[in-house]
């Protein structure tokens, strides 16, 4: 299985990565070689094995529903490039 240059471009768009046209071919080859590895794993016999959602065979630890955080806005916004009225400012987004 291999990825076409169009698929590479689509993946890049979804990840908001800007890639140069001249590198598309290389990415296509690199990513396709990962599929090679996946296919190799597919060859392993797993018919009687229950799939796992996580490599660790453990269950999620839960925390009690308690508010432990205080207002840290000034510190957390310290390195935001633009802010106003306690809001982060970002380039205009419209649906």
């Amino acid at each position, binding site marked *: 299985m291999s990825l076409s240059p169009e698929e590479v471009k*689509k993946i890049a*768009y*979804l990840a*908001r990565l800007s890639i140069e046209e001249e590198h598309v071919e290389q990415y296509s080859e690199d990513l396709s070689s990962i599929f090679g590895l996946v296919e190799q794993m597919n060859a392993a016999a797993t018919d009687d094995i229950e799939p796992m*959602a*996580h490599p*660790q065979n*453990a*269950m*999620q*630890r*839960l*925390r*009690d*529903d*308690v*508010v*432990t*955080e205080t*207002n*840290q*806005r000034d510190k*957390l*916004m310290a390195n935001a490039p*633009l802010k*106003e*009225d*306690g*809001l*982060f*400012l*970002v*380039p*205009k*987004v*419209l*649906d």
Partner: protein
Amino acid sequence: MEWETVIGLEIHAQLSTKSKLFSGSSTEYGQEPNTQANVVDLAMPGVLPVLNAEAVRMAAMFGLAIGAPIGRGNVFARKNYFYPDLPQGYQISQFDKPIVELGHIDITLENGESKRIGVTRAHLEQDAGKSLHKDFAGMTGIDLNRSGTPLLEIVSEPDMRSAKEAVAYMKKIHELVQYLGINDGNLQEGSFRCDANVSVRPKGQKEFGTRTELKNINSFRFVERAINLEVERQIDLLEEGGEVIQETRLYDPDKNQTRSMRSKEEANDYRYFPDPDLLPVEITDEFLDEVRASLPELPQVKFKRFMQEYGLSDYDAGVLTANRAVADYFEAVAKDSGEAKLSANWVIGELSSHLNNHDLLITDSPVSSEMLTGLIKRIADKTISGKIAKEVFQALWEGEGSTADDIIESKGLKQITDSGAIEAMIDEIIANNQAQVEQYRSGKDKVFGFFVGQVMKASQGKANPAQVNQILKQKLAPESE
């Protein structure tokens, strides 16, 4: 051609936890922007989510209430998309292994029949922050206080066939989550939100038509309007030989129209995968037994019990059980006063209209259930008439006294049941209104009301109405001349 409408709803109910789904930040509404977003909610590098036990318990409650299996090893997955109010670049949600599996809820149709609606699934997920498109010199403001707030997304089967059915289903879910105490039911603040998937198909056709998703329909009225508009739009389109495009449409309540929101196809490529930061959630039998034991009486059950135990009509029982606080209030009054029907009338009538006029919830009512009980006891033992009772209620509402008895006493509202006193008043009125007496005796029955009015006026509304009627009839009869 005859068309059939097919509707499925996705409801996002904010769970009433104190802290967020994966962090210890407060979920309180309406705070200063970005004061309730910590490093986890802001997705700073290196942070890890830790799951809130209460959110898991609430989701399990909902599952048990709709008769659904609870996912024993339910799994969190990442739903990937870019938006500035989603700092992680993905939403932690659930995909193929949700916490609540297939269940159902029964709705009542307009003709009184019951219809079962399938609930495909319900899963836990984080809410995003808020984008404020006010004018910040052409920029968008981001408030992340809501980021990470726990949501239960409740997905229905495409089982509804009209906008009315969709609203009935939405109301049922709204009622249920409030009964369970897992959601505050506040549509205005966005703690209960709804999207609708709508399609049409020629009647009799098995396959579904192409659907559109309607967003931003956050009131029961808007849901009905938006769906009807969309159905009309799709039918017009198809009848003109066009085709429906699968897309997201936004309902604009001001213009009362829907418009296309996103056209880019790739916008819907979420590339879900299990979140490596989170392990599967274990649900044990012991845990489920505990949750089951904590379930309150559910609306359907309460509805039937109110009809049997208090002899209420299905209308009254329906109104009184639509909200748990209202049901509790009614039941307290009915039990303590021993007058179920009278209690129902007062809660549905006078109390509800006062609450509506002042835009108050029953939990904030200035007239407590104890106060209303006291009032109803005085109506039942005929100390006051129903009309005077309204005056007493008004005085209680305005805080002029803490019990009905206080107000009856201080305002001298006790009903006059002494027939001698009533007779004396009537004699005087008859003597002063001979012209009306003649009219009545010559067959103008309507004039009777004039006399009742006069007696009530003379007694300041305190004369017992039944006695007034009876004595007036005797005195005005021609043979008494």
